[in-house]
């Protein structure tokens, strides 16, 4: 009975969170109307650029390292199975699109976004909450949704999209470098890139972009939601980060797998 009660509580909490996230989504869309005012847009733009820089650009370093490693791994494994096959590049291109572009790229970029940026935003938001700075915004009659949520709401999906794109490019390049070192017949980077690009359909581009936009949007909303739920208690911020990360990982995997299953069945 106690187990059932706990299960019910978990399910209820999950639904509450989902309703709250959709509430925040609606508020963000309504608040976006205020961006038509020049002065308000200036405030938003400065915060948006700062968020995009912190989330997208500063992640380049870690994104590059992981993309190189994955590219090396992918090429080494494929080469160990196919060897000096005459149609190696064709097979590799198909495999690359299937594994990296469709699944691993979006997932790894999403995990980097969560680990590097979403946690930081939850902590920042929690700090603002614990130091009564949401009350300050209330006192100067500025909605926290405008100042704190909107920049994240727009920057996170865009950052994730850029991270996908960058991850795939670096992965292709590192694969080519390993292939260049392993194979006796040299293949130009240009040809290698074109062979992979030929395998990417318009549908794939749309699905990948949708994964970035939907997952990025909900990861952003979730970190603000949990950051704003921080209580004035010791360890409340770390607890919020922990819960927020769990929820974001579930959202990321669900969105990615669901879209893949629906689009590529």
């Amino acid at each position, binding site marked *: 009975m106690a187990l059932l009660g706990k299960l019910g509580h978990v399910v209820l909490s999950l639904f509450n969170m989902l309703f709250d996230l959709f509430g925040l989504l609606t508020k963000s869309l309504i608040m976006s109307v205020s961006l038509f*005012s*020049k*002065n*308000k847009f*200036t*405030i938003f733009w400065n915060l948006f650029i700062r968020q995009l820089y912190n989330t997208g650009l500063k992640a380049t370093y870690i994104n590059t390292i992981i993309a190189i490693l994955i590219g090396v791994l992918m090429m080494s494994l494929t080469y160990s199975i196919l060897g000096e096959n005459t149609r190696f590049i064709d097979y590799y291109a198909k495999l690359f699109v299937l594994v990296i572009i469709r699944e691993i790229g979006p997932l790894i970029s999403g995990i980097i976004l969560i680990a590097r940026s979403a946690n930081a935003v939850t902590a*920042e938001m929690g*700090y*603002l909450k614990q*130091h*009564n*700075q949401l*009350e*300050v*915004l*209330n*006192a*100067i*009659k*500025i*909605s926290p949704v*405008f100042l704190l949520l909107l920049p994240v709401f727009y920057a996170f999906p865009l950052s994730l999209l850029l991270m996908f794109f960058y991850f795939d490019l670096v992965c292709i390049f590192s694969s080519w470098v390993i292939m260049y070192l392993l194979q006796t017949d040299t293949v130009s980077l240009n040809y290698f890139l074109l062979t992979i690009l030929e395998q990417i359909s318009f549908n794939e581009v749309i699905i990948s972009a949708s994964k970035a936009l939907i997952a990025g949007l909900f990861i952003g909303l979730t970190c603000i939601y949990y950051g704003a739920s921080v209580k004035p208690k010791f360890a409340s911020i770390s607890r919020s980060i922990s819960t927020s990360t769990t929820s974001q990982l579930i959202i990321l995997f669900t969105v990615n797998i669901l879209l893949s299953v629906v689009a590529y069945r």
Partner: protein
Amino acid sequence: MSHLLKLNNINIQFAENHVFKNLNLALDYNEILVIKTGVLDGGSSLLKLCNHTLIANSGTVLYEGISSENLNNSTFFQTVGMQFESEGLLSMYTVKENCKLPLTFHTQFKDSTIENKILSVAKEFNLHYLLDKYPYQLNDVQLRLANLLRLLSSNPKIILLDEIQSGMSDKLRSGVLMKLVRYIKNNNLSLIMTITAGDVDDFSDRRLEIKNLNLVSY
């Protein structure tokens, strides 16, 4: 003629703890009102109520005869503003950016106009040395002064100051109060200031203190 600010039959309580019961208060145009407070007796809550950041359990708050429920955020911003006793600034911005934020948000002024407004108030109060500092670089007195700078730059009709004199040396206190009273008179503003033991009140038009969940003259 209606009052600039009027509180009617205000009741405030947090859980079982009553803070105000049937509180009435009227603030006139160009009036300086001082409210003497003790520890945790509701001074800050009263100012937050006047600033519409705290909603009373019952009662009405009228600004120039209009109920707080019928005012939008921009009108509130032009009508009333508050200085916080502690913190009160956004930590992601410098003092100057904190001052610019509400003016940029609520008005259509150009950036240069907003900057000039802030610089002119900073110059008048000798606070320009705070402008490029972040809140974490300021002590509690400087934080309150930075709050004051933001508030005066916004130029609302009602200025609410929460224990601004706390921690100030006698010299600093007399200097700030002299400039503040002059600024308020010159700009036709009204002021409610909470004070605590040892603070100066001789510049005020009216003095009240919080007693038995209400306000009484002293």
